[in-house]
């Protein structure tokens, strides 16, 4: 699996490597992220910080203020380095465009099952590669 390229729809393609932060299946930025500190305040990643991480979630849910949360993360210098969503990025999209945030979505369920358990990924102009996987089950 490590060498295989995972296909995705890509906005702002990039070449980078980073550690993964899994935010949950239905992710609402409001009530999950503290925009001033970058701390995760709810969900499976509670207590961790998203600064410099590759964020992964199943789909967007809940509050429509998500772009403001991400624009505020820029102001506090706590932005993640990329976003991966299994389904479609819609609510967060305007922030991803404005922030030039590498954004990968429309992942197959099979590939997503590997990604959400990965600890380290490499993002490329073509897709995603898992560097370290199966850190959690």
């Amino acid at each position, binding site marked *: 699996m490590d060498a295989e390229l995972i296909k995705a729809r890509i*906005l702002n393609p990039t070449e980078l490597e980073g550690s993964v932060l899994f935010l949950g299946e*239905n992710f609402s930025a409001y*009530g999950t992220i503290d925009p001033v500190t970058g701390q995760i305040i709810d969900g499976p990643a509670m207590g961790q910080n998203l600064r410099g991480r590759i964020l992964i979630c199943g789909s967007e849910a809940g509050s*429509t203020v998500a*772009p403001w949360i991400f624009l505020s993360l*820029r102001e506090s210098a706590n932005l993640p380095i990329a976003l991966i969503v299994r389904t479609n990025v*819609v609510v967060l999209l305007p922030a991803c465009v404005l922030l030039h945030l590498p954004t990968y979505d429309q992942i197959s369920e099979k590939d997503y099952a590997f990604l959400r358990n990965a600890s380290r990924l490499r993002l490329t102009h073509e897709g995603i590669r898992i560097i370290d996987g199966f850190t959690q089950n």
Partner: protein
Amino acid sequence: MGSIPIAGVMYLTSRQEAILGGSEGTISAQLLRILLELGERQGADQMIPIVSAHLSGISYLTGGAGALRLYRELGAAGLRCAVRTSINPCGFDLRRFKEMGLEPEFVRAQQELLDLMRGIGVQTSCSCIPQMIDPPQAGDHLAWAESSALSYANTVLGAYTNRESGLTALISGVLGITPNYGMHLDRNRVSTCEIRLDPSFVPHTSLEFSLLGGMLGERVNDGIPFFRGIQPTIPQIKALLAGMATSGQVAMAYFEHLGLPLTILPRERNDRVLPLIVIDRSEYQAYVERFTNEAIEPDLAVFGCPHLTEAEIDQILRLTEQCQDRQSNKPIIWFFCPRVFEQRIPDKLARLSELGTVWFDTCMVVSPAVQSYRSLVVDSYKSYRYLRPLFAGRITVRDRLDLINEVFNGR
């Protein structure tokens, strides 16, 4: 293997092409580029005009420094809203904020944000029920970002709106257009699953419908549920839709008894029987134990998420018509309502204010005012979901009519 191409190329009018080329400034070009990117990814064929926009992320708690920076840029560029643009609750009551015990820094930032909004022509309505304040007509195309309100507009009023983010709704308000995809197209407004309630589970209260919504939103996610065999009232539908829009992305639902203005109500899609979800009492009980298993004696009860409607205020007033003495050991009560009710229903508000403090322009979810209390009781899945990680003390849910009955009637 490799990247997936974006869905398509949109038709733009000559004016829109000129804006993209910078004819109306670099910020307008950037804003239109965002709508274009969204539209192309979602398969839109063109931009369509909208009647109104409704914005979220108004409180400095939700919009924060990010919103402040963008609104400053819009104001400096001299941009103005092209259509009626209303807003969600902000961080405090605009006239009585000094009574709310807020940090001066928060008040200053919130006031600057609101001033910047007024400067670009936004109406500072500060309510999350725009559908009750200035209801759209059936067939109107909108760009609304309050998830509960947009779902109500699609479901009950027959308007057309996608589930916009606060930022795309703002852009649509300024440009007067939105990409033509998703809920703007009749072919997408079809039910994706059928919901039935087992006879063992008959919800009655708004809270039960709200929690049912939270439960279903996780399962339906971005689908369009068709509710069969139940006939909820309008306040119950409001609560159910808000719950589903909080835990999922539900932007529309069908109810047998509503008789939608636009009559697209297929129970089957492509001759395929819809997936059926049946909820029974035991499943519901297991779900709500997450919210109600803590025995808390709250010192503050906060009601109105989403904002109380006139019908909901009527329910409270009917219940307390024969009100006995207030039980002294019960929590104080805050009600959250739209400011416009001061003109529309002053007598009812006067009676409501005898039961508790009535706040306008804000709500418990987006105001830091609740943080000075140790324990809270809220009246909806939505307020519980957002406040639980943000509130420093303990929190639980109760149906507002049950609690009011207990506080004022002693039962």
